[in-house]
């Protein structure tokens, strides 16, 4: 019997031997997938524990498949038969990959697809799930190979969990000392080492102290790696030269710079129509009259610049749009020495930062009917509540979205794609951007206990409290429909502004 035939021969046997267990696991995965689809966007309380159950069950299924032909039990049936040890390993790994890993990932894919996410976002989401879940499955394979039955496997899993807990309690900062960038590398190395260890055990049948030490090391590395971020995100690129740019202007006067703090107000001028901007202040330079310069690194992040940012078609009038500028506070704390240095007198102050550019576009529209849903671009939203009376309206939206990686525009800020909502009255040719009254967000797990999915419940109103009356009536609201506006990052550019302080 050739190698490949042996792999299939063993897999067929395992499918029959562990058929009930594998079937039960598949049924659980299907059930969790279906409930995730049905309850997508709903914070489903105790059902959020189901992904952990899938993980635990997946580990047990993997352990059962490995222990069916234990690599370390000398009385294992296969051990004294003419099997290729590598074929035996290949059969176990293939079954673990196909059933324990691929099945729940398929479930994740189905749920992710329900949000109409792009392929790249879906791929990122699945990669994050596969990476950490595969490590759990490899931990299960290693522990199953080292133990003789399911009972001792479960004891080993709990022992490992307990050991990790003790280490965390004794060395709470120990994990933080491992650079986050190292953790994905640890994941890859631990995964490879885990498979190599199980391969070695299948070949040598060794189960002594050395095997346990190697197994514990691999499992510890894999456990640490499961806490790693889902992958590095490429920094957002410089915006194209032909994209019109805003300018930064300091609006404060020097008189406001007193005491132990320099507090300035700034704003962005000449915001191009149709752009939504974010601003991150990175540095303040204070040039003194004696020729010295004080440098203050800063970490300020502000969003929401840009007037008329709705992607309006010709002839559509925007209601209630603000026309005034938005002011940004830029503050620097002074140390005692800096405060004394300031006595020499300030000649000028420079604020530097970076502007991120987002391009709004209409992702979709849906009728204002409770229960109406829309899936678009990695987001599935549902109208949970819609009521209006006397020209006032309240809208509650539940959004389930795959949080794609957030590209940083510099070290101190990020530029997430953002979503806003508006009411469109086609007959009147008018559009009104809704204002959030309250937003509640939570991370949610689907089939596997991995990050990436966010549930947000937004309560939206026609205008902020205290705003002047809007020219909307019940009839206007009755004819309106909901417009979903997404703002996608285009890029960023550096800005700076200078304020000269008169003598």
């Amino acid at each position: 019997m050739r190698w490949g035939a042996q792999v299939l021969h063993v897999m067929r046997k395992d499918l029959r031997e562990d058929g009930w267990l594998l079937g039960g696991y598949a049924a659980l995965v299907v059930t969790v997938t279906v409930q995730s689809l049905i309850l997508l966007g709903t914070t489903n309380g105790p059902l959020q524990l189901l992904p952990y159950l899938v993980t635990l069950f997946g580990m047990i299924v993997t352990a059962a498949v490995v222990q069916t032909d234990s690599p370390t039990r000398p009385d294992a049936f296969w051990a004294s038969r003419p099997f290729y040890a590598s074929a035996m390993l290949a059969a176990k790994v293939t079954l673990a990959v196909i059933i324990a890993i691929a099945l729940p990932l398929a479930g994740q894919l189905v749920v992710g697809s329900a949000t109409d996410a792009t392929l790249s976002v879906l791929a990122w989401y699945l990669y994050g799930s596969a990476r950490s879940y595969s490590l759990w499955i490899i931990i299960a394979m290693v522990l199953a190979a080292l133990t003789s039955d399911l009972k001792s496997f479960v004891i080993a899993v709990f022992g490992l969990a307990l050991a990790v807990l003790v280490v965390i309690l004794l060395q709470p900062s120990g994990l933080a000392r491992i650079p986050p960038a190292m953790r994905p590398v640890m994941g890859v190395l631990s995964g490879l080492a885990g498979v190599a260890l199980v391969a070695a055990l299948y070949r040598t049948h060794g189960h002594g102290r050395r095997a346990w030490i190697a197994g514990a090391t691999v499992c510890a590395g894999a456990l640490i790696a499961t806490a790693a971020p889902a992958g590095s995100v490429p920094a957002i690129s410089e915006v194209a030269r032909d994209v019109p740019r805003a300018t930064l202007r300091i609006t404060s006067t020097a008189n406001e710079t007193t005491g132990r703090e320099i507090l300035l107000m700034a704003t962005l001028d000449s915001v191009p129509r149709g752009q939504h901007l974010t601003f991150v202040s990175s540095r303040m330079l204070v040039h003194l009259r004696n020729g010295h310069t004080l440098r203050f690194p800063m970490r300020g992040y502000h969003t929401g610049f840009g007037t008329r940012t709705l992607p309006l078609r010709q002839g559509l009038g925007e209601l209630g749009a603000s026309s005034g500028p938005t002011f940004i506070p830029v503050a620097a704390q002074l140390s005692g020495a800096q405060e004394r240095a300031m006595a020499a007198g300030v000649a000028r102050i420079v604020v530097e930062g970076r502007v991120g550019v987002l391009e709004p576009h209409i992702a979709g529209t849906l009728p204002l009917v409770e229960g109406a849903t829309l899936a678009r671009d990695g987001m599935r939203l549902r109208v949970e509540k819609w009521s209006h009376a006397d020209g006032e309206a309240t809208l509650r939206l539940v959004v389930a979205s795959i949080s794609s990686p957030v590209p940083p525009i510099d070290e101190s800020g990020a530029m997430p794609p953002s979503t806003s909502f508006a009411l469109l009255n086609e007959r009147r040719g008018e559009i009104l951007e809704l204002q959030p009254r309250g937003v509640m967000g939570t991370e949610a797990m689907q089939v596997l206990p991995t990050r990436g999915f966010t549930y947000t419940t937004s309560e939206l109103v026609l205008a902020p409290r205290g705003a002047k009356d809007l020219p909307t009536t019940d009839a206007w609201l009755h004819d309106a429909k909901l417009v979903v506006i997404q703002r996608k990052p285009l890029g960023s550019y550096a800005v700076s502004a200078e304020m000269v302080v008169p003598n």
Partner: protein
Amino acid sequence: MAVIEVSHLSYRYGRVDALRDVAFSVPEGALFALLGPNGSGKTTLLQILTGLRRARAGRVRVLGTDSVSLTIHQRQRISYIAEGQRLPGWMRLEQLEAYLRPLYPTWDEALASSLRDRFGLDRARKIRAMSRGEQMKAALLCALASRPKLLLMDEPFTGMDAMVKDDLVRGLLDCAGSEGWSVLLCSHDIGELELLADWVAFLDRGEMRLSASLDDVRARFKRVEVTLEGPAVDVSPRAGDEWLAVQQAGNRVSFVLDHRDDVPPEITLRGSFPRATRLDVRDATLRELFVALATRHRSERSAEMEVTT
């Protein structure tokens, strides 16, 4: 040609010596009985022979190859039945046969069928529903149907009733005897193997005390019982190295004689016991021999320890 050749084999579990400087060989076609009490290292030795454990020191060759380097084709010619062999209980016997058949190019369906009939096994029965004796028969069936060149069995008769043992022994003897297969059988039940084996080895506390053909053993080791005339006299000063496990009760003396001369033992013994009223000499049984060898070794060891102390 030897199917198994072992020399200077040692193995340790932590700080405990399981096997020490073990050496023996199994000739082709032999029915080799490896005897020893529980914990003597038999199972470890068999696991090393099948490549399930790696020797710490020494040389172990099976079918002419190092036991840890056996190719898949060589392993197809070896069958091993472990002590308390775990068979996949969820399978029916026919499924077990179907699972194993493709692994062995030499699988003999006719032999499997005849052994099934002979052992009274039901193909459609699940392994877990079989009694322990039936499971061992099923294991033997699978081991023999592959027509192995070498069959290794570890305590195959433990806990079985006489009928089942008889079935197994007959089945084994018929197949191995007629086909010329080599069989290495481990047991702590010495009496069981006396009628079965043509080669025998004694393993005690990890050391090989003896390894020889049964004919040689019978020719060499004699059970001697002497009745002395007159009052009891301590015979121990007369005892030489060749007297093993000497026991004296009054004027009756018994021991196992390690007889290496060409001179008939009766003649030599007459010289030692000129006033004996009765002198019986017969072939020592394996049990008597094993006890004698083990007793001598232990007394030698305790004497060594006393000297050391």
